[in-house]
């Protein structure tokens, strides 16, 4: 697939503190790329670096081959951004707010923005923005972002202030954008939403990229919990493609991808007392890197094990 956003060794340092550390990732054209991580993990810094709002201490970031710092203006012509912390011009009406932001792109997308805001988000655009609730402001900003005629949408926590109905609308708009060929970077904390719409997901921790998961592959994977009558075996046939996630005496949790028949054949020859087969949601993957008992020094091993 064609890569549209690339970062290589991207590092942002404030004194001794690393907001980003050696971040290398690729986002493919036309995909929905989920960005996960707790507060302070570097998601927003990554986005702001891509937009050219922050200059990297070292490394590089590019959009469609354009350097994100030196060619920032051309990058921003291709990108629409929804900030995580929305601040708007309260003295403008909804109409004028949309008009102003569209005018900064030469007036492009205004009609579509008004359509999304009025018909889909059900906003009263005659009111001053200062009279809007937080959720209404978010809807207005989303209407703006989805109406921009750009290649890339970067949405930083786009559903954080929205009611459940509006969240559904946003997810539909993201999928619609994808169907029209736009690339979407979706940063968020609601794992179920990211899981539902993303093609790939990156998990960050303390400024580092921990893992990139292909969600299509993940949806085909299964988690198997087996309890053995004796101690669980230490080794498995390589051709089974098993990845051990947890070992607890006679109990073994592992991830499996591929033919189920060969796995069942192997099980039939083992002293197994109980077995449960299901899927792992994104929460399980996320917790591998962010559960409270995971320490930084353990993460290297965890990351290595997580690689398929």
């Amino acid at each position, binding site marked *: 697939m064609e890569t549209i956003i690339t970062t290589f060794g991207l590092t942002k340092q404030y004194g001794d503190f690393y907001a980003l550390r050696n971040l290398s990732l690729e986002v493919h054209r036309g995909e929905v790329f989920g960005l996960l991580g707790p507060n302070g993990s570097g998601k*927003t810094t990554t986005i*702001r670096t891509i*937009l050219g*709002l*922050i*200059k990297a201490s070292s490394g590089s970031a590019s959009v469609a081959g354009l350097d994100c710092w030196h060619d920032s*203006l*051309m990058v*921003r*012509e291709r*990108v*629409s*951004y929804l*900030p*995580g*912390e*929305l*601040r*708007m*011009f309260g*003295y*403008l009406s909804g109409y004028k707010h949309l008009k*102003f*932001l569209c*005018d*900064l*792109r*030469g007036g492009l997308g205004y009609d579509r923005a008004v359509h999304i805001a009025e018909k889909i988000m059900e906003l009263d655009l005659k009111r001053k923005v200062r009279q809007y609730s937080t959720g209404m402001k978010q809807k207005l900003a989303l209407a703006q972002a989805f109406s921009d005629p750009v290649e890339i949408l970067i949405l930083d926590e786009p559903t954080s202030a929205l009611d459940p109905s509006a969240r559904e609308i946003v997810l539909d708009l993201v999928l619609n954008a994808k169907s029209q060929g736009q690339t979407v970077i979706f940063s968020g904390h609601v794992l179920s939403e990211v899981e539902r719409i993303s093609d790939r997901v990156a998990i960050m921790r303390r400024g580092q990229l921990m893992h990139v998961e292909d969600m299509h592959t993940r949806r085909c994977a299964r988690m198997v919990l087996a309890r053995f009558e004796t101690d669980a075996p230490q080794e498995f046939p390589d051709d089974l493609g098993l990845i051990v996630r947890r070992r607890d005496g006679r109990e073994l949790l592992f991830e499996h991808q591929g033919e189920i028949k060969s796995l069942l054949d192997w099980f039939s020859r083992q002293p197994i007392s109980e077995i449960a087969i299901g899927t792992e949601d994104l929460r399980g993957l996320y917790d591998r890197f962010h559960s409270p008992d995971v320490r930084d020094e353990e993460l290297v091993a965890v990351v290595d094990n997580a690689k398929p």
Partner: protein
Amino acid sequence: MNKSLFPLINRLMVETRFFLGFSLIALFGLSWFSVLRTSWSEGRQETVAIREQAQRGELAKAAPKKAAEKKDEPKAEPAKDEPKSETKAEPAKDATKTADATATPAAPARPPETDAQRNQRRARGFYQFMGGPDMDMSSGAIETMMLYFLTVGIPIMIPLFWGISRGSAAVAAEIERGTMDMILSRPVSRTSYLMAHVITTVIGFALMIVFLIAGNKVAEQFHSVDMSPSIKALARPAINVVAMGLATFGITLAMSAWDLVRWRPNMIASILTIAQLVGYAVGNQPGTEDDSWYKVPGKLSIFSTFFPIEGFVKGEKLGFNVMVLSAVFVVGVVAAILRFNSRDLPANS
């Protein structure tokens, strides 16, 4: 630059409409007031003369003659334009005292009302309108306060406030309130963004010059004065006043381009301005030796380029003064552009 510049300027004009609007109205009103006050002052002097003539029993012949002569004799001293009121205020104050001192002569026969008397009557009506029917019109203190404070202080302060306010608003305030992201995530170059602020501020200053002149010229239609200055003569001190504001804007803008919060460039620029004013006052104490260190802060102060009276009367120093102030402005803007283009823009702090 071009496609984003107009919407940015448009937004800034909307955003600053109240501040700029009130500033312009204030300058217009103060300029008007300076004419009114001049007219009143000239009228009061005429009244004193008439009363003295009346006491000598010469009124019937002298008053109409003097009024007729007065129209043919231009005064040597400039009559209007508020920034040079320090020299003009004194006669007005003296006139008030004289008028008060001669307030109880034997009542003469009522003379026909001259133009000057009519102006004085109008002026009293205006003062009573401003202060209410119970206003003590005999108070020299009130008049002195109004003349000095309203006509000397505010016309300088308004451009300075405008310059400091717009300078700190350009970068630091937008970062602080978080609206910078909304704009600079669009295809807007940082230089365009700053230039929109600069152009908006300069438009504001240009309007201030226009309103200062317009207030004077419009007021002349309602209050007659002995000498009507030309628009050019009025423009010169107005440009000097506004150039002060422009220089202050440049300095504040440069500080704002470095900062994350608005209060800091606001405070530093305000302190710097006040310090320069104090330095100028210290450096220009009467009787100070030329080689005294007292002179140094006066020479370094941007107020040393502020000669509105000279600008009004001759204008010989105006070009140099405005050039110095404009240079400060340009240096500030260039420094701001260089810094703003190289700095990080963090999320709102």
